[in-house]
Every structure is written in structure tokens, then in C-alpha cells.
């Protein structure tokens, strides 16, 4: 556990030295602010961030993989991976630590969203319950995207490839389900599964203010699955 935190801390501080991280921060702040100001801020609008957050989930498809793409790939490229893997720590320490560090960086992205909540507080009386649960939901979504991204990053030393691999894994579980209701010839079991797997649908209850166990389990299993795959990929590298 101490090793996980050690690696996570190093990862978090090194994120702030990467220009890509600042680009992600900037684009995220700008994007979310535009969504909020243009779409939801104004007299007569409900004092809620639910709509904004749902759009943020879409924005994250492209921004979160940009955070995770460097996690392992950069260590491969620079060779520091060799020193990391010859330290007396486990492969799981490395993967979970890296993922946690990236999640820590992601949480700084949420600052503009908190600022929006404060803006609402000054101008109206928002219900803080859904805002807090919405933020927790966003962290879970990011956790899943980052786990996918960590896995993608163990596959290649090229960050761009890692980025596209994670996007190509995320898109089918976010965009594809939208078209499922139109494919009436699909067996109901299949379409039900696809709809169940959709990240945005699993996020919805959080935006409403619901912290429901099935949704939390969905994200926890997804995160565990991809982190497990990442650990196995690292292990397999020793045998090449």
C-alpha cells in the first residue's frame, strides 16, 4: 500500500510537468464552462448542474485518455520502466499506483465544476446533494476511463497509440448503445447487455442524486477488470 501511494505521488507531481496535462486542464475548463454558461446558466433556468455534468461525461471520452496515455508508455520510452520493474515492488503496485496518481490529477480538473456550483450558490439555492453525488459519479467514470487508459498504455511505448486504443475501447461502450433501440432485429438479451454496459446510462443516477449500489458495482468491476488486464500485460513483458 505504501508503495502504491509512493508511485501515485510521483505520478501526480510529474503530471504537472507535462504540457499535455495543461492542455487537458485548459480544454476541460473551457469546455465545461461553455457548456454551463451557454446551456444552463441564465434567469429562469433550474439551479442544477445535472445537465452540465452529463455533457462532461461526453467530453471526458477524449480528455481522460490524454491523461492516461503517458502512464506506462512514457516509462517504456525513457527506459525508467526497467528501474521501476527491478525495484522490490509488485507489478500491481506499479499499475494501481499509476492509476491512482492519474485519478488524483483528474480530481484537479473538477475545480471549475465546483466553481460553477459556487456561482449557483451565490445566485440561487441549488440542491447540493445531486451536485456532490454527480461529482462522485464523474470520479468513478474517470476511474473507469483511466483504468482503460492504463491498460492501453501498457501495450505500447507510443503515447498516441495508447490514446487511440483507449478511445477505441471507450467509444463502443458510450456511443454504440445510442443506436441499439433502432436495431430491432437484435436479440433482446444482447441489446439489454449493451444498454447495461453503457457508461452514460450508468452515470445518470449519480446526476440525479442517487448513489445506488448497482451503479457503483458496475464502475468498480470495470476498473478492477482493466487494471487486472494491465497487470497481466506487464507480467507478460518479462517473458518476451
Amino acid at each position, binding site marked *: 500500500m505504501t508503495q502504491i501511494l509512493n508511485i501515485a505521488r510521483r505520478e501526480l507531481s510529474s503530471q504537472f510537468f507535462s504540457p499535455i496535462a495543461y492542455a487537458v486542464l485548459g480544454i476541460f475548463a473551457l469546455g465545461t464552462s461553455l457548456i454551463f454558461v451557454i446551456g444552463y446558466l441564465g434567469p429562469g433556468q433550474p439551479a442544477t448542474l445535472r445537465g452540465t455534468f452529463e455533457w462532461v461525461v461526453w467530453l471526458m471520452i477524449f480528455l481522460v485518455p490524454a491523461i492516461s496515455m503517458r502512464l506506462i508508455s512514457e516509462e517504456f520510452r525513457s527506459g525508467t520502466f*526497467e528501474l521501476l520493474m*527491478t525495484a522490490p515492488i509488485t507489478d500491481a503496485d506499479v499499475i494501481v499506483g499509476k492509476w491512482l496518481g492519474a485519478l488524483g490529477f483528474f480530481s484537479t480538473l473538477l475545480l471549475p465544476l465546483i466553481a460553477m456550483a459556487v456561482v449557483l450558490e451565490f445566485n440561487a439555492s441549488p440542491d447540493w446533494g445531486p451536485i456532490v453525488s454527480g461529482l462522485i459519479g464523474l470520479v468513478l467514470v474517470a476511474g473507469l476511463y483511466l483504468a482503460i487508459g492504463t491498460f492501453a498504455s501498457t501495450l505500447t511505448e507510443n503515447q498516441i497509440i495508447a490514446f487511440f486504443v483507449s478511445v477505441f475501447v471507450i467509444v463502443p461502450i458510450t456511443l454504440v448503445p445510442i443506436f441499439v433501440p433502432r436495431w430491432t432485429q437484435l436479440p433482446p438479451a444482447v441489446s439489454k447487455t449493451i444498454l447495461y454496459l453503457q457508461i452514460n446510462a450508468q452515470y445518470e443516477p449519480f446526476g440525479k442524486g442517487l448513489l445506488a449500489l448497482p451503479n457503483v458495482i458496475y464502475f468498480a468491476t470495470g476498473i478492477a477488470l482493466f487494471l487486472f488486464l494491465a497487470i497481466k500485460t506487464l507480467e507478460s513483458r518479462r517473458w518476451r
Partner: protein
Amino acid sequence: MIEVNDLVKWYGPVLAVDHLQFQIPAGRIIGFLGPNGAGKSTTLRILTGYLSPTSGGATIAGFDVLRQSQNARAHIGYLPENNPLYPEMRVDEYLHYRGKLHGMNRNERRQRIDVVTDRCSLEQLRRRLIGQLSKGNRQRVGLAQALLHNPPVLVLDEPTSGLDPNQITQVRSLVAELRGKHTVILSTHILREVEMSADEVIVIARGKIVAQGTIDELRQTARTGSKIIIELQADARSVSSVFAEVDGVQDVDASARDGWCTAAVTPATGADPREALGKVITTNGWTVREMRHDKASLEELYTQITAEQDVANTNAA
């Protein structure tokens, strides 16, 4: 301290390490010598637990590198080839991070960082970003990192590659200071490197050990490959027949040119027939204008050994 047992590593269809076997007692500095691509780095990567062997095994301080990997790794300080570092970290910060990876607490870290930065002359650079350091200073950070947890075994993969002569000398003296305190395995493709600092040399080529022993033993082997060259005024045929009779002479190769005869005498193993040769020359009344001992240097021996290996492999293929 280090035991390598019938180690084999295949990279797909390529055999990188071919049934390697050797033992290194505690406190020795071993030069691991071989041309590029001989399998040096692969062997070291297996010892440090970065790669798994295809078959065979190795132990570090009694711990199996495969089954007790964490324990084995805890006993090794490793400086990989090209000395990878995080350019965005400060020297101190990086050493603390590495110390934590080795499970050292804050006090141990502080104390050991003081020791290793002093030993590697890094005191002035502790607050500097690694990315801004010169190559030589970065190498010192790499060494400091390897020494940090005071490991019984040090694995240094080409520690002087890419350094200027001054820095090479510094690294060499640093390695020499480790004698007796650590078991060091130092890989290089430059012979002079091990001539200066190693107690014993293992020469590998194409994944196999082709020579092993102390520098002196290797020199001895080299000497048997040496020749005595004599230029004298005489008939080549009589020179060969007379010299061949001399004690300690294994082979004579005489050729005549411009009235002078050049005889290349190969001494028998361990023998030095120079005096005896001088005597027969005087008894025959030959005029001598040159007599020299063509010593095969270690460098030549090394080239010869590794080249033989190449030829053998080409023939086999």
C-alpha cells in the same frame, strides 16, 4: 553471492543467452565483457528480475531471481544501460523516491542520501533538476541511486558509455572504492575498462562464455599466442631447421627477402626460448639486425576470442 545456473534466454527465434553458468563470490568485482549484442544486458536483466529466463536460473544472495524475485531485487543496486532517469525530478526528490521504493524510512533515507551524494560528489547538485544535469552528473545520480539502499550486489551495465575521459576516470575510481564492500558485476564492451578495475573477467560472445579468469590468467593465455620475431642474414631453410631443434620452440616460420631472413618463432606453452635462440645464432655466426617479442595484447586476445566465436557461428549456420 551471484550464482548463474545453466541460463538460457530466447527472444522468439533468437538465442540471446546460451547455457550460461558462473559463480561470483562476495566482495569481488567482475568484468562482464563482450562485443555489442553478446547477451550481456540480457543476462544482467535476468539477474535484476527485469526479464525471466527461458530456462535455467540464478540466485542473488541466495534468493532465486524468479521464485523469490522481491527478495533478490532488494539485494541488488542496478544501473541500467543508458542510465534512465526522470528529467522532471530534482536529485534529492528522485533519491527519496527510489529509497521509498526500497522500503527505507525517512531517517534511513536522509542518512543514506547524505552518504551516497557525498560519495558520488553530488552535494552541490542535490536541488537541481535531473534534466538540467550534464551526462556525467546524471551518471553519478544513477550510481547514487544504485548505492542508495547499500545493496550487497551491484549490477552496472556499461557505466562509462558516453562519458568523457575525465568522467570515465571518476567512475572507475568510484567503482574501485566499492571493492570488498559490494559484489560488483560490471558489463562493458571495452577491455581497458575491466583491466583497470575488475578482479576477474568473464568474456561472453553470442550468449556463451568464451573466456574466464583473472586478468593475469587471461594475459597468460594471450602470451602463449605471442611470437618471437628474428631478422638475420642467413639461409631461410637452415634457419628453420636449426631453430626447430631449440628447446621451447614449438614452430618456426622463416622467409627470405633481400638477403635477409625473417623467422617467426612460436614458443611452446609457458616457455621463453629467447636466450637459447641467441646462443644458436652466435654458434652459427649469423648476423642479427632485429629480435623482438611480439606480445599479443589482451585487446588482441579479446578480438581473437570473440572473432573466433563469430566464425564458428557463421560456419555452424
